[in-house]
C-alpha cells in the first residue's frame, strides 16, 4: 500500500488538474456563446446576398457566370475544417475520417485539400496527401477577412480550372451536447431551387452581369465565414463536454484516493496501537 504522503500528494495534484479542467470548461462555454452571437450577426448579410442573387440570376444567361459553371469533375477540391488544438473529444477525428473516406473514394491524386486548422493540416501533410493550402493559428483572432482570404484561394482554384468542384467538411453546431458532421458543395454554386421569379424591374449599374459577378464571391465568403463559426462553436462545445467529463473523472479519482488515504491512515494507527500495546505488555512482564 502506498504511504500516506504519496496519496496526499496525488490527491493534491488531481485536485489542481480538476481546477484546470473546470476553468477550461468555463472558457469554452464563453467562447461558444461569443461564436453564436457572431453567427447571428452574419445572418442578415448572408440572407440579403442570397435574395439578391436569386432575384438577378433568372434574368441573365448563366453561361456568363464563372462560379455556377458545371463541369465534368476531373479534380476535386476539399476544404477540411478542424481545430488547432486537441482536448475536444472526437471533434477532429470524425472530420478527418470522413475526409479520408471521401478522398479514397474519388482518388488520392485527384483531390486537392484546403486544410483549416493544424490538426487536419498535420494529418494530411504527414500522410502525403495533396495539400494545396493550409491555414492555422487564426482561430483566436478569427474575423471576416480571414474567411474572405481563404475563400479567395479556393475560388481562384475553381476559376483557373485546377478543380471542378469544391466541397467542405465541417462540424455544424447543433446544441451544446452534439454536432452534426456535414459535407456540403461550395462550388459550383447551385441556386436553381431558390429562384425568385417575380419581376422586379430594376435598373442595374453598371450591369446585371457585373452585379452578379460581385455578389457570387460575397456569397461564398459569407458561407465560409458561417461554416468557420459553426465549426468553432462545435469545437468549443466539444471541448466543454470533454472538460466536463475530465472534471467528473478527476472527482471520482479524488474520491477513490481519499478512501485509500483513510484506509492507509487507519492501518497506520492500528499498527501504532499494536506497537504501544505490545510495548506496554513487555514492560509489565
Amino acid at each position: 500500500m502506498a504511504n500516506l504522503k504519496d496519496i496526499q500528494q496525488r490527491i493534491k495534484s488531481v485536485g489542481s488538474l480538476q481546477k484546470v479542467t473546470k476553468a477550461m470548461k468555463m472558457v469554452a462555454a464563453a467562447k461558444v456563446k461569443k461564436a453564436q452571437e457572431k453567427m447571428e450577426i452574419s445572418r442578415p448579410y448572408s440572407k440579403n446576398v442570397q435574395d439578391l442573387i436569386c432575384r438577378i440570376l433568372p434574368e441573365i444567361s448563366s453561361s456568363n457566370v464563372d462560379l455556377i459553371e458545371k463541369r465534368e469533375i476531373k479534380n476535386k477540391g476539399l476544404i477540411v475544417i478542424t481545430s488547432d488544438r486537441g482536448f475536444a473529444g472526437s471533434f477532429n477525428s470524425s472530420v478527418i475520417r470522413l475526409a479520408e473516406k471521401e478522398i479514397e473514394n474519388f482518388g488520392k491524386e485527384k483531390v486537392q485539400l484546403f486544410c483549416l486548422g493544424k490538426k487536419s493540416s498535420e494529418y494530411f501533410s504527414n500522410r502525403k496527401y495533396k495539400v494545396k493550402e493550409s491555414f492555422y493559428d487564426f482561430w483566436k483572432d478569427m474575423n471576416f477577412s480571414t474567411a474572405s482570404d481563404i475563400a479567395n484561394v479556393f475560388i481562384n482554384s475553381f476559376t483557373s480550372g485546377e478543380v471542378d468542384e469544391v466541397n467542405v467538411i465541417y462540424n455544424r453546431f447543433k446544441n451544446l451536447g452534439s454536432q452534426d458532421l456535414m459535407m456540403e458543395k461550395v462550388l459550383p454554386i447551385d441556386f436553381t431551387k431558390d429562384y425568385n421569379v417575380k419581376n422586379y424591374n430594376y435598373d442595374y449599374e453598371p450591369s446585371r452581369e457585373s452585379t452578379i459577378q460581385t455578389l457570387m464571391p460575397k456569397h461564398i465568403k459569407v458561407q465560409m465565414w458561417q461554416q468557420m463559426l459553426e465549426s468553432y462553436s462545435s469545437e468549443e462545445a466539444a471541448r466543454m463536454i470533454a472538460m466536463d467529463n475530465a472534471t467528473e473523472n478527476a472527482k471520482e479519482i479524488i474520491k477513490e484516493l481519499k478512501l485509500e488515504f483513510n484506509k492507509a491512515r487507519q492501518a497506520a494507527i492500528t499498527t501504532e496501537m499494536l506497537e504501544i500495546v505490545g510495548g506496554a505488555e513487555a514492560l509489565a512482564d
Partner: protein
Amino acid sequence: MNKSFQLDIVTPTKSFTFDNIVYVECPGTEGYFGVLKNHTNSIIDLKEGIISVKTEDSNLKFTCSSGIADINSDSSDDLPDKVLLLVENVQELQE
C-alpha cells in the same frame, strides 16, 4: 408629405438600421450617386469610399469597402422605401 426612408447598412459582422433618412450619398463604381425618397428601383455596385447619410436632424459619415446598393421604392408593394447597402466592412467616421 413624408420625405424620409429607411437605410440598412449590413455587413457580415455588424448591421445598422436608420429611419428618417432624407438623403444618402454612396460611392458607386461609376461615380458617387445620391438617393432621395422615390428613387428608381436600382441595384448599384459600390466601390470603396465614403457613405454620407443625412437624417432629419443629423449628418453621419461612414467609410465602406466595395459592395452592392439595393434601392427599393416600389409603390406597388406595401413595403416602405428602403435602401440596403451590402458591404463587407463599414466604419463610422467621427467628425
